């Protein structure tokens, strides 16, 4: 990481693990529950959020001295909304099927607490380069968890990854299905995402003693 100073590198690396927006700050849970039944949707959602957060943080950081503090929330909303519409239109143009799967949740990136949180907490008070790194870092932290949850849910729930069967064919009974394995229907429904996220939080906290709260 000769490219970045240690301080700047931490802006990207911290949200990936020790200060993860989902597992530590417990933000952005709604979309993590809604669109992680398939790995592909999780990945596209992550990329969209990375784009919105990276660009959004830069824009807010550029305007930080121009925005009157009384109307800063509405100004932030306009920036996010614009970027989300761009993402939505791009998806509709180039990946129509996928945009149908994600449906309303692309629009709901606007309300993703992580984005507003980073605008408020970081971009309004820091320079452009550092804001950009912070946005990318937090969106990556969000994306990592999304992809992890999507991986387990799609693998256990449908026996596929990116829509490709990896455990055999459940209808013609090949692979694992030949010996009686069946897909776990529980993993398809949204509450399963809550439990998978919970298990990730559990594993992370028991491995990292610094995160354990005083009882």
């Amino acid at each position: 990481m000769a490219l970045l100073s240690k301080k700047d590198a931490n802006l990207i690396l911290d949200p990936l693990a020790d200060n993860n927006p989902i597992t530590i700050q417990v933000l952005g849970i709604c979309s993590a529950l809604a669109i992680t039944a398939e790995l592909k949707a999780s990945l596209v959602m992550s990329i969209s959020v990375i784009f919105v957060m990276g660009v959004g943080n830069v824009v807010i950081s550029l305007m930080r001295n121009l925005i009157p503090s009384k109307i800063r929330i509405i100004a932030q909303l306009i920036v996010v909304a614009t970027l989300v519409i761009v993402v939505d239109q791009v998806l509709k143009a180039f990946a129509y099927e996928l945009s149908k799967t994600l449906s309303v949740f692309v629009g709901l990136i606007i309300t993703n607490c992580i984005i507003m949180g980073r605008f408020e907490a970081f971009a309004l008070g820091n320079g452009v380069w550092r804001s950009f790194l912070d946005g990318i870092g937090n969106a990556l932290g969000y994306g990592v968890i999304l992809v992890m949850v999507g991986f387990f849910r799609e693998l256990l729930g449908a026996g596929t990854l990116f829509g490709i069967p990896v455990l055999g064919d459940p209808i013609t009974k090949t692979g694992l299905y030949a010996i009686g394995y069946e897909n776990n229907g529980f993993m398809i429904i949204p509450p399963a995402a809550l439990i998978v996220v919970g298990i990730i939080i559990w594993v992370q906290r028991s491995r990292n003693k610094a995160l354990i709260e005083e009882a």
Partner: protein
Amino acid sequence: MKEKLHELKLKYQGKKMAPAFNAIHTFLYSPNETTHSGGHVRAVDDLKRTMNTVIIALLPCLLFGIFNAGYQHYSAVNGFPADFSILEHFITWDNFWLGAITVLPLVVVSYGVGLAIEFVFAVIKGHEVEEGYLVTGMLVPLIIPVDTPLWMLAVAVAFGVVIGKEVFGGTGMNILNPALTIRAFLFFAYPTWMSGDKVWVHEGVARAGTADAISGETILGYLAQGKSEAMYAKYDLAEMFYGFIPGSVGETSTFLILLGGLFLIFTKIASWRIMLSAVIGSLAMGLIFNWVVDAGIIPEYSKFYGLMQFDFWKHLIVGGLAFGIVYMATDPVTGSQTNKGKWIYGFFIGFISVMIRVFNPGYPEGVFLAILLMNVFAPTIDHYVVQGNVRRRMKRLKNATILPKPSDGKAEALKVETV
């Protein structure tokens, strides 16, 4: 043997595996340790004895389930006996043997996986092995269909014990009843193995689609499809009550469940308040549905009609309602703790069970969902009962200070008394 174990225990004290060893030791013998300080009341009814009492109450259901598994299978294959006699058609070696080789593996897997996880967690966390799984392990095989694949059961048990119990801190800390968590997991994960008319009879699924296909629709299944006449033609009330009907392994015999319930009430293990109020709750909901039908509000072609016109008291003798009320709702950890709270908690279990049973489109039973739902609400109910009690006494205190004359000094005395 006893002395040897005591010696071994001292030797392993403080070692990593000590909790696992102690668990087996105290299961077999009462410990030889005396209390180190202060006065203690010693009684034999510790957690292990309590759990064992519930298991004793469950054994008749298990035995009946074993015979019934065989009876349902052979009856489905060879046709039901015309004049049914218990000794001739039910308590036979064939029935027992078939039941034993299908039901006992469920028991073994349930205990094996569950206890293994308990032991692993005890060793990792360094606490004593908790007894909570003794009852859960017996309940689980009794509330699932007889042909549930063993690996599914193993996965569900692992999920139920870890997510339902260990993450909350183990026995006594869990919010949800672990046995019902396991059943709920099975139901949502593998619905094809948990509902329909094939799963309740041994080999029903395996033979589906072949020339030898057999099926055993449950009473509630018949009613949900609006086939009341067909159901009454096949089963009469006595069969429903004594339990010679298809269903999950151990929940069909209301008669034996009733005996087990009386035994639990007599030994003061389970709360009669919860049982009674749950019965009242289910009767109330059943009466409302019967009234709806009588008043002609719901047309006969409605898909709810079959279950709604089912006489309100018959809900108690079919499906898992009786089993749930007696053995699951009365779980002292997940249920309400206050007496008034137990009445409310039990009432809603019965009420919601029958409601879900009638309105659930895919699956005409809802006892486990109702109990899990009320498990979640139990602490809230307790909170408001306690708050209500505090408010009532505060009111009494306020009124009490006004009555005596402030000059004679009795006010202070009275104030102390009423608190």
